[in-house]
């Protein structure tokens, strides 16, 4: 009997080191002060990207996901992996939809007394998101048109002399993707994104609006951008299909650089495996990417899990800024899903957190 098993010892040693690295990776950066979150500038509430219900449910860990059931893949290189073409329309809305009209007024420059009362009068945290998209996906080319993506978030602290942090954005966008298989398992692709955006992103004392200098505090800013984002993906021919995915995000041009809007070019990496589980498949995903590009490094790690069983998709995701989970059904020509997201866990800020329900319905052929 062998008393000494060097392979096992090495593997245990590597495993222990990996565990230690993971723990340190998440815990160590607690001593850094990269970005103040004193006003809950949480990437989940301030992220600028339009994303589908499933992508949000996965905490944006989607680079390793070959096919996103309700939208285009996050990694254009996976385009050739789509088996069936798809044309669909999706509409997504979060709770708090009563604030949609006020958000649109705010972004059109209307700051009336009634509007201020409705936004800041009763609620300390307000959040609303709504979007629509028309998407076409095939083996060779994907395209998506987002006629409207609307987001709003505000938090008011100290009701006696209020401090406000506010983020409102309205955008429309076109996205084109294409990809080819270069070698067995190796894919490359490119994504072109063109968008027009109107936004307000500000932290201020509410009474600033009552001063002469602060009259333009809530004046929306606009810009247009075009990004050309190359990526590649490599899939190992193993059981569980482990794969790595790399995307160069936000590479392109913006019409006007504004200090409130930070969108630097970023190398994003995703890993994925797909084991069979019971009667379906489970995609386990790990991405390293920024959402609002101001996060600390450990908050750029996103875990997602997507269980696909028949017409049903169960999704769950977690990152340093929040947790989400939901369910999505894709039937022959219609689909629907619901998802819950919160910034209270894993690292909430006491009573200043968001809890949001998203609902999406769609039609596809």
């Amino acid at each position, binding site marked *: 009997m062998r008393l000494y098993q060097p392979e096992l010892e090495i593997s245990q040693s590597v495993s222990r080191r990996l565990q230690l690295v*993971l*723990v340190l*990776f*998440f*815990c160590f*950066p*607690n*001593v850094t*002060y990269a970005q*103040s*979150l*004193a*006003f809950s500038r949480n990437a989940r509430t301030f992220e600028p990207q339009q994303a589908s219900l499933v992508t949000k449910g996965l905490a944006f860990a989607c680079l390793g996901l070959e096919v996103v059931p309700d939208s285009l893949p996050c990694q254009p290189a996976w385009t050739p992996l789509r088996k069936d073409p798809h044309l669909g329309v999706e509409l997504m809305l979060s709770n708090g939809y009563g604030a949609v009209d006020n958000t649109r007024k705010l972004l059109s420059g209307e*700051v*009336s*007394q*009634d*509007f*201020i*009362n409705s936004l*800041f*009068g*009763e609620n*300390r945290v307000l959040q609303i998101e709504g979007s629509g998209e028309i998407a076409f996906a095939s083996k060779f080319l994907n395209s998506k048109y987002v006629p409207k993506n609307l987001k709003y978030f505000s938090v*008011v*602290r*100290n*009701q*006696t*002399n*209020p*401090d406000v942090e506010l983020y409102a954005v309205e955008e429309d966008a076109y996205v084109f993707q294409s990809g080819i298989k270069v070698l067995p398992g190796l894919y490359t692709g490119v994504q072109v994104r063109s968008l027009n955006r109107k936004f307000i992103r500000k932290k*201020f*004392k*509410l*009474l*600033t*609006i*009552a*001063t*002469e*200098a*602060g*009259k333009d505090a809530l004046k929306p800013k606009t810009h247009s951008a075009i990004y050309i984002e190359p990526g590649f993906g490599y899939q190992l021919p193993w059981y569980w299909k482990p794969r790595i995915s790399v995307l160069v995000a936000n590479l392109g041009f913006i019409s006007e650089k504004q200090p409130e809007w930070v969108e630097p070019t970023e190398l994003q990496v995703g890993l994925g495996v797909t084991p069979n589980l019971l009667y379906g498949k489970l995609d386990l995903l790990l991405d390293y990417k920024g959402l609002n590009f101001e996060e*600390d490094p450990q908050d750029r790690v996103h875990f997602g899990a997507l269980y696909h069983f028949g017409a049903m998709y169960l999704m769950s995701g*977690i990152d*340093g800024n929040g947790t989400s989970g939901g369910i999505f059904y894709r039937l022959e020509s219609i689909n629907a899903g619901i998802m819950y997201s919160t910034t209270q866990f*894993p*690292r*909430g*800020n*006491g*009573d*200043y957190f968001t809890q949001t329900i998203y609902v999406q319905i769609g039609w596809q052929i």
Partner: protein
Amino acid sequence: MGLNGCSPRPQDPSKEKLLKASRLIDAGKPDEAISYLEKLIEQEPQNTDAKVALSSAYAAKAGIKVTSFAGMIINARSVENVMAELSKNAEPSTTPTGQVDEFLKKVSSLMSKASGVARIYVDIPEIRDDVYPYLLYAIEILEEQKDLKAEDKIFKVIMEIIVLKHMISTDLVVGIFQKDWYSQKCVLNFNKFNRSLIKTGKLVVAILEDLEVAHPSKAKELNELSGKIVSSISDLTSAATSITVLDEASQMFLKNAIISAGIGNLAECQP
């Protein structure tokens, strides 16, 4: 496991300290916020933001919540409306009883100006007498700061307007007749009235000076208005002094005239 085991990420220390104070105020614990901020100010005496936060903690203790009337404050016309109310002039007297009439018109004019300003900010709540001292202290904290930002000046203006409303309903309508302890008759005595008048005038001037900082383009007009208010107060105290030597019949006429002018509180005989 790593995510669950890690403590919340530390924030920017200065912002985190003020955030804690904001949380205590929002949680209905102004006393804890005051205690916390006073310790912070002891450690950082130059921290103006902490002093402004302390002022808001005292205002919270007085029951003030700006969010409940934020829209009205931010109304773009509110400063112009205040200036318009304060610019209204009393019509000069032409009657034979000129002195009394002149006095009544000036009092009515001043009360009309003050009430006009209070009407613009009708949604700003009244304050109870028991918490009124906290509001006064909150204003005092801000008065001690040399370089207040414009938005903090507006916060001070709001508190001053609340005080003005309180003064109109309590101090400004103090009677000008006082019971003489020897004769037990009500005789004219403008001492309390003049003191209230001057106090109200000073407050209105303070409001206008703070608005000058918040609205620099209107600073000249606001400054002129301040001057006019000071003159009005001065004229009124002089007018009051000039009618202190009325005989009994004239005093009765004055009393009736005050009641007819709708400011009957002034005719009450103070103990």
